[in-house]
């Protein structure tokens, strides 16, 4: 599809949906509410939204959807650390019921026993999975769950009179960047530790870093390299030894479900991403769902309200408890991302203990299988811990290929999309040179893993034999190579269509005129002579 911007589709007078109108009786009673608006409050010019019939709006967005590559379509193992797994369709269908969509959060608890029970049960299961005492599901993403954890840590130290003293948080470079960023946003100085020569988290470095100013260590394990810190319990003990707390980023928990638990290593708080480990869809970047799990000592600081279960004469009842004097308060509206929570609950209930363990075991099997396949590709390597197994993912490197061909990991990623595959380099900074991180999870079949590895091998071979082909990618995508410089220059960047028209309107008009003169039909004109070659869906 060669689909214009929606603003270019406007046709004055068309309507997309009609609004319920005020009844004559209401009009008679209230008069002309617009005419009576206080001075300056009546909008002078209508908002310049497009005017379109319903089918055209639908068609526009359906076409855009086909220009997008969801996990349901590709072998989505290229976004390592993000756990792109199957989000079962049955869960989408279960949540799309008025029994959830039409629930108001302040309805009487008697009308909400079903959803309250699901929240409570989900918390209980996550408590068992983490070994923690209590869980809050209020946050809508992993990073904000991390924030919630550091906010509770801050509240804990403040409650103990050490709020001023403890102003440092320690993390590692292969922990997710949000640990560092959330700690900073909470007012902490961030100390980042680098791994030892073998890529393992460096216990000695930690020993040198902890002290009376340390508020917490905030670490991911297994780290983004896929390496599990075998001394993690020592790390926690070291933190505790100086009065600091230990916060566990479990974004990478998928490979250790039922194997080991945060509390078993002594952590005080941890978080899960429901949209990663627990099989809910990623929604183009949210809403996800965060779970903050805490030890008994940290429980008073949880955000509220909490869902409590009581057994009375009338049977079991679930209630909302907002009487939490030490709570950090609200971290989000109401009780969390309900569609995510119910999906995660259903996902766990479809699997059970045996199933969760099969998830973990199959994920690591897939990961180590893929590791072997990738290492067979000349030019690819898996730095650190050479010859050792990994857990959930591997941070690989194309450094050898880059040195040989000049083709970068980023260029390989763009070329991979030509094969209908998504591929991501890695989080910054690129400690591993020319990095890429693959996380096959448990969701993809052996044949799919083979297919993905074969595409990488194909591109590596192209890089050697026809580097230009790789460098000039994309060749088979909705859009051609973009000029990214536009977006770094305040004079040229355009974050909205109105800004674009203001900054580039003249060039836009000129470009169209030129195209028209050259016999081409510009995008904003009738799209008739644009052949489908320019209009293919994403892959």
């Amino acid at each position, binding site marked *: 599809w060669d689909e214009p911007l929606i603003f270019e589709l406007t046709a004055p007078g068309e309507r997309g949906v009609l609004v319920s109108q005020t009844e004559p009786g209401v009009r008679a009673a209230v008069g002309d509410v617009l005419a009576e608006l206080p001075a300056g409050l009546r909008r002078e010019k209508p908002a310049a939204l497009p005017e379109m019939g319903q089918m055209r709006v639908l068609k526009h967005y359906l076409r855009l959807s086909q220009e997008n590559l969801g996990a349901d379509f*590709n072998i989505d193992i290229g976004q390592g650390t993000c756990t792109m797994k199957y989000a079962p369709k049955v869960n989408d269908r279960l949540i799309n019921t008025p029994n959830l969509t039409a629930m108001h*959060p302040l309805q009487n608890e008697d009308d909400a026993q079903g959803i309250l029970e699901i929240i409570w049960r989900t918390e209980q299961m996550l408590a068992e999975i983490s070994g923690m005492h209590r869980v809050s599901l209020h946050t809508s993403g992993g990073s904000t769950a991390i924030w919630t954890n550091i906010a509770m840590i801050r509240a804990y130290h403040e409650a103990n009179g050490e709020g001023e003293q403890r102003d440092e948080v320690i993390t590692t470079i292969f922990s997710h960047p949000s640990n560092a960023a959330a700690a900073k946003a909470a007012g902490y100085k961030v100390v980042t530790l680098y791994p030892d020569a073998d890529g393992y988290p460096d216990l000695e470095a930690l020993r040198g870093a902890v002290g009376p100013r340390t508020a917490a260590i905030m670490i991911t394990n297994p780290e983004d390299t896929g390496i599990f810190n075998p001394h993690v319990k020592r790390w926690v003990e070291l933190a505790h030894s100086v009065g600091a707390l230990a916060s566990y980023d479990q974004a990478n928990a998928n490979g250790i479900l039922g194997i080991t638990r945060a509390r078993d290593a002594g952590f005080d708080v941890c978080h899960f991403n429901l949209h990663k480990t627990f099989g809910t869809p990623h929604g183009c970047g949210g809403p996800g769902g965060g779970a903050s799990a805490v030890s008994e000592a940290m429980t008073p600081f949880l955000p509220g309200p909490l869902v409590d279960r009581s057994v009375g004469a009338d049977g079991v009842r679930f209630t909302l408890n907002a009487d939490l004097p030490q709570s950090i308060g609200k971290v*989000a509206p*109401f009780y969390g991302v309900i569609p995510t929570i119910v999906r995660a609950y259903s996902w766990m209930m479809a699997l059970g203990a045996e199933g969760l363990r099969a998830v973990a075991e199959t994920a690591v099997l897939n990961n180590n299988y893929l590791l072997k396949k990738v290492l067979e590709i000349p030019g690819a390597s898996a730095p650190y811990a050479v010859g050792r197994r990994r857990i959930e993912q591997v941070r690989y490197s194309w450094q050898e290929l880059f040195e040989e061909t000049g083709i970068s990991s980023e260029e390989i990623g763009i070329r991979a999309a030509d094969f209908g595959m998504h591929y991501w380099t890695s989080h910054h900074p690129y400690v591993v040179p020319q990095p890429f991180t693959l996380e096959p999870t448990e969701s993809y079949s052996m044949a799919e893993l083979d297919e993905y590895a074969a595409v990488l091998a194909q591109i590596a071979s192209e890089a050697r034999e026809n580097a230009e082909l790789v460098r000039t990618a994309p060749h088979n995508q909705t859009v051609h190579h973009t000029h990214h410089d536009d977006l770094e220059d305040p004079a040229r960047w355009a974050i909205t269509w109105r800004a674009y028209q203001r900054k580039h309107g003249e060039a836009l008009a000129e470009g169209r005129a030129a195209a028209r003169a050259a016999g081409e039909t510009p995008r904003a004109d009738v799209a008739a002579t644009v052949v489908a070659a320019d209009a293919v869906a994403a892959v």
Partner: protein
Amino acid sequence: MTTPFVHPYIPNTAPATKAAMLAAVGAESIEEFYVDVPAEIRLGRALDLPAPFTAEADLTRHVEGLLGRNTPTTQRLSFLGAGTYNHYVPAVVDEVINRSEFLTAYAGEPYEDHGRFQALFQYQSLMAELLNMDVVNVPTYDGFQATATALSMAGRRSGRSGIVVVSDVLPDKLSRVRDFVSSNLALHHVPTVDGLADAAAVAALVNSAELAGDVAAIWVETPSYRGAVESGIRALADIAHAVGAVLVVGTDPVGYGVLTPPADQGADIVCGDIQSLGLHQWYGGAHAGFIAVHDDPSFIMEMPSRLFGLESTTVPGEYGFGDVAWDRTSFALREDGKEWVGTAAALWGIAAGVHLALMGPQGMAELGETLLSRTRYAQQQLAAIAGIRLTDSALHLREFEIDVAGAGLSAQGIVDALRSEGIEPGVVTGVSTLLVCVTELSSQADIDRLAEAVRALAETTTTTASDNNASDNTEEKSA
């Protein structure tokens, strides 16, 4: 179990495949992959979880059974708001965001995820038209976060620490903001007068010795917690600008089809929640936050969220998309980025974009008018009941507060009594005050039904009260 565990979600549990893969990597068993996990922290037992429903039919029956214990607002006449609102969601919105391509995508590049980038760029652009501002972010978690970040932006940008809070703020939102900014900012409250900001008192505080030179922002909420539409934004903006501070307006965009956008009245940062623009109530579980600013790098570079921009490609006239000023973010710079960026609420942004495209200028104008009319009508009907009064005389959009003390009622008593008739009359905000919410889905008949029910209760109570010379404790009467 003696039979191998094979699950539809985990293809390689198929025994033959599993064996082949183990053989391929030269492993005897899965256990080999866990050598780095020491025994001291191994769980060593099965997780203690409820028995699963591995057959999809059984799972469905279980979950539907649980959800069947809910009684949603489609079966109640609901006047509940206070942060989550019952607006109509057009079917096309749900159709689009339930497309597998959008629902299950995540973080693809501008090439294979061209559609996502365009849809979110369009969301930004459509919101920008509604708000008359040039920059809108990819949604953050919710309006609470958006407001907390907007105030933090004002603080970071100015290096000052004072925030002057001039409106009645939803208590939960205030709680969230207070904790979030506590390391960096101090909140100073100026009480409202008749529901709206007290500009004179604000000016006095801003220029007081205590705060002079340290005011980062004046924070307005409109509609306020009680639904009052602030009429003094221009004056407040002038006060802020006079001392080098900015005006931050927290708002709900639903009314700007007919109301003047805050930017036209001098607002520098406008922020809030888009739940009203095409998201179901979801028991409060579907919120997303927007932050809008002018095209001024001093604001933009303080924004933590992703900003999608339109860029050219190697084909003349073709639109490409990408991230604007990536180096602001924690993805680029970890703790040296602005706050952080992570999985937030992109899908809800796409929904709001579809919603605005469907509504168009005329739809948003009609919606605004309907909301104003129905709100006013509900105010009239309820205030016409003897002993019930509105708690302020401001213009209200969608929500307003009534005080029922004069009718011998308590707010909780009304809620308990009307519940037996299937009505949720509003949110209790005090012993005798109730926050009532009407939307375009509250028909005249619905509002009349509410008013009739309250009137009947008030009359019964008054009669009983006069019979008994009774006190104003009405709870016992409201079975």
